């Protein structure tokens, strides 16, 4: 991100942004970075380097759900907190934020202008449309099933699973506070579909279909990021991400177990 290690000369004098403007910018920028999937340690480093560039002393603590910011300048201290309630990986936004910070470093953009641009981020449209995103889902699950050694029938049956998972995760209520329900619901839908398919095609491996569908939402990347954070001594952030990975895995597992329990009941009653 703009946080190049070779920092351009400090902004001082009339060009220096006001403390309030800078804190407002930093709060919005940090929140957007965490929302877009940026790691906590990078957000903290970026805030510090931005502060140095603009002539402020900055200290930041970033965790997956919040960012605390303290900025000091000439005996005055401002503290702020931004709460992060939703997060996902949005590499397009990350690249745009990167360019924005580059522009600040190269003195092509003032903090006030950058603040105005950040406000427009809420209205930015995604780089790929809904149909292309669903098509990506239709490709990802069959590819995973193929890599696990699935038969041509299983690979073909994987495509609808990928579409369903993408739809549930991106276009239902994945952005609000019921996101753990999304994981449970994804698992229920995938398991129901897989065992439904097995009633039509008795030779297919239903657990393989479930895994091929669910792996897309299993928090493997969250787990890797958590270990990455812990390895960099960002213990709070790493522990929070580990817990998140555990809760998502549990939600997925209970979703599949829920469907299996219902199937067992139906089978035991002769259906």
């Amino acid at each position, binding site marked *: 991100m703009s946080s190049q290690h070779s920092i351009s000369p400090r902004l001082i004098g009339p060009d220096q942004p006001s403390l309030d403007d800078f804190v407002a910018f930093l709060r919005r920028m940090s929140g957007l970075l965490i929302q877009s999937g940026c790691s906590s340690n990078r957000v903290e480093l*970026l805030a510090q380097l931005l502060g140095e560039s603009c002539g402020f002393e900055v200290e930041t603590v970033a965790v997956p759900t919040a960012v605390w910011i303290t900025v000091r300048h000439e005996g005055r201290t401002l503290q702020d907190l931004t709460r992060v309630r939703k997060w996902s990986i949005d590499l397009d936004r990350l690249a745009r*934020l*990167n360019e924005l910070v580059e522009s600040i470093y190269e003195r092509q953009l003032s903090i006030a202008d950058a603040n105005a641009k950040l406000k427009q981020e809420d209205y930015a449209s995604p780089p*790929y449309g809904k149909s292309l995103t669903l098509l*990506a889902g239709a490709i990802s699950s069959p590819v995973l099933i193929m890599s696990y050694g699935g038969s041509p029938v299983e690979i073909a049956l994987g495509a609808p699973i*990928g579409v369903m998972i993408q739809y549930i995760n991106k276009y239902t209520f994945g952005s609000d506070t019921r996101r753990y329900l999304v994981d449970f619901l994804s698992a229920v839908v995938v398991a129901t579909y897989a065992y439904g398919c097995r009633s039509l095609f008795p030779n297919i491996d239903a657990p393989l279909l479930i895994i091929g569908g669910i792996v897309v939402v*299993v*928090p493997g990347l969250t787990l*890797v990021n958590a270990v990455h954070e812990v390895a960099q001594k960002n213990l709070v952030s790493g522990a929070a991400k580990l817990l998140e990975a555990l809760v998502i895995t549990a939600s997925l597992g209970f979703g599949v177990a829920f469907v299996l329990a219902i199937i067992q009941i139906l089978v035991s009653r002769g259906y």
Partner: protein
Amino acid sequence: MEHTGTMILAAILGSAAFAIAFRTPRRYFGLTVLIGACPFILLKLMPHDWNIGFGSFLAALSAGCLSHLAARFTRAPAQCFLIPGVILLVPGTYIYRAFNAALGRHFEDALTIGLSAIAITVGVSFGVLLANWVVPSRKTL
């Protein structure tokens, strides 16, 4: 997946699918897909008797190094190239299988598969970490 052509096709398609899912910027799409496919192909070409954690470490190291090189070349964040490549390495299947085994009270299986998941996770994480030192990033992101 023994056929090399099929494996390469799967790696490219999988990488492209995840690049779209993670909203990779359109202008970096081609490069991201190429870089994303490399670690998966590397992992599949490794001898089967190699430790799975070590194999994942090498694949993640290659993904990290290529991503940092691409970031230097394009001035984009390295994460744009790294995440679609690393996602194909993460042990999602192992995590799910371990949890499923535990739910089915097959605790020995759950422990064995869970330990493999931990080995892969640690291997991938340290591969990415080491790549930061091998090809130092010009940027913070």
